[in-house]
């Protein structure tokens, strides 16, 4: 298939035998990046004020680990409640009954508009505004009644504040996902006699997931970091737990590094999980599942060329892309 062709000069040419091109500016750029990275590493290793021994000492401290557990718990609870709430609000925003649309838009407007820190403090102080929380007939007799002071602990204030805030953001993400689904899909589902709920749950929502997952991953990470806000209402999250320690020992920087290490660790895990979920919901969209070639070697970066695969069983770096070469005409 790849028969050599002749140029006017009579030379036999086959681009498969081409040498990589040398690109001098990439060498310059690469050198600058290497120097900066080296300096950062030297700073991190040699600066004694970072006190890495203290970091190591407190990394697995029970107080820190329980703070980490609370941070993860709040993130998951906030995300689950926020996602369910967001899906309902998104469906409501697309309702054909105008009052439902208005109330859902109002919800998003309010809870996306107020900073989460303000919301947390507000919910924590709810008892001042509403001393008793009552379930009963509107303007009629009451059935159950609780003191707001008993009901609103730092934990419930944190869960309410984070979930409502998250719900507003998730509803916008879910709404964009729903709008991204071809209207023909809804027509087809209705045409087959699916109910509105079946159409939404079986046809629209699974397909919108492909669009919903990536921003939801970012949202998950934002919420994980956002939980650090609850330390202001004395909720024992990761940040609060290291604060408790450094208020006692005055080792502020190393203990903040302990928190940084854990935040980065969990965020990395979440990112990896997100990639897996993206692949799952992307099924049915790629005609043939091909893995992207890894082009990360230093040589590739400098020359901009994907190394040629070695003939048989070679450890060629760019194989995924190369294998199709012979199939094309």
């Amino acid at each position, binding site marked *: 298939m790849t028969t050599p062709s002749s140029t006017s000069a009579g030379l036999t040419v086959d681009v498969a035998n081409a040498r990589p091109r040398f690109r001098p500016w990439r060498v310059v750029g690469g050198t600058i990046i290497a120097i900066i990275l080296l300096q950062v590493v030297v700073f991190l290793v040699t600066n004694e004020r970072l006190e890495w021994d203290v970091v190591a000492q407190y990394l697995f401290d029970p107080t820190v680990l329980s703070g980490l557990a609370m941070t993860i718990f709040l993130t998951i609870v906030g995300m689950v409640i926020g996602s369910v709430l967001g899906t309902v609000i998104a469906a409501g925003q697309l309702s054909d009954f105008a009052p439902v649309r208005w109330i859902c838009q109002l919800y998003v407007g309010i809870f996306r508009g107020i900073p989460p820190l303000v919301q947390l403090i507000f919910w924590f102080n709810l008892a001042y505004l509403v001393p008793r929380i009552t379930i009963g007939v509107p303007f009629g007799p009451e059935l159950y009644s609780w003191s707001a002071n008993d009901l609103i602990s730092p934990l419930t204030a944190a869960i309410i504040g984070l979930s409502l805030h998250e719900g507003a953001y998730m509803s916008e993400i879910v709404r964009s996902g729903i709008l991204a689904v*071809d209207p023909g899909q809804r027509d*087809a589902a*209705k045409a*087959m*006699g*699916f*109910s509105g709920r*079946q159409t939404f749950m079986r046809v629209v929502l699974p397909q919108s997931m492909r669009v919903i997952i990536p921003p939801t991953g970012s949202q998950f990470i934002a919420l994980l970091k956002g939980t650090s806000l609850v330390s202001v209402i004395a909720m024992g999250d990761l940040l609060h737990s290291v604060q408790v320690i450094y208020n006692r020992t005055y080792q502020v920087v190393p203990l903040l590094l302990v928190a940084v290490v854990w935040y980065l660790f969990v965020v990395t895990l979440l990112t990896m999980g997100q990639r897996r979920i993206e692949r799952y919901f992307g099924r049915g969209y790629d*005609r*043939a599942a091909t893995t992207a070639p890894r082009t990360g070697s230093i040589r590739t970066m400098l020359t901009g060329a994907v190394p040629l695969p070695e003939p048989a069983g070679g450890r060629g770096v760019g194989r995924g892309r190369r294998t199709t070469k012979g199939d094309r005409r």
Partner: protein
Amino acid sequence: MSASNTESRTVLEALGVTKRFGETLALDGVDLSVSEGDVVAILGPSGSGKSTLVRCLHQLESIDGGAMYLDGELLGFEEHRGGIRPRSDRQIERQRRQMGMVFQQFNLFPHWSVLRNITEAPVKVHGVPMAEARARALELLDRVGLADKADAHPRQLSGGQQQRVAIARAVAPNPRVILFDEPTSALDPELVDEVLAVMKSLASTGITMVVVTHEMAFAREVADRCVFMAGGRVIEEGASAEFFTQPRTERLRSFLSRYSEGQREGEEVQA
């Protein structure tokens, strides 16, 4: 065409149906009657209201006037205290289940396998046991020539194959009538024939079909009756044989002649 058709009862009927999109009158008092076992082709220029009509018949669009009946039952509305009112969503879903629809853009569900695309409605909507639905789906796939594609995903198929799956999906729940909304218009020319062949064999099984199409040869050969629409109205209708050879209105005559010229031009361009 045959004598038995004149005796058979009306399955689907539209009486004076009107539909407005804002200021435009998309359907302007359309009458249509489809007898059991008939294949009715709806022809006409773009924007004549053909697609709107079948979408209204399947209640994917609401109508603004007139009435539609399936087996004598009023579609979308019910009698109430001496007048009529819209039916409940459940009632409308029940009525939709008695009809099937094939779309121009296929509209298969890309997140499900071909098999699940076909079995989902019988199982989840009609309550057919999974094993039975599966057997029927495989039989239908065999009939449309795609027995080996049961586990494929729709996007791995060509347009023609997708449309054949969509036809199998519409047939699976045994609907009273199947509506086709320009089923070959989105296909590459070389894929049109395989879909028309499937529709032709489907027509021979005696199922009632309403087909909006630009395929004159198909309408002439397969349809029992043809309906010509323009400007949201039915201009002319009749048995296929006379419809093409002895058009009664000037409008249809010019449409047919322009269309055959267009066909020839198209062929020349391609050649």
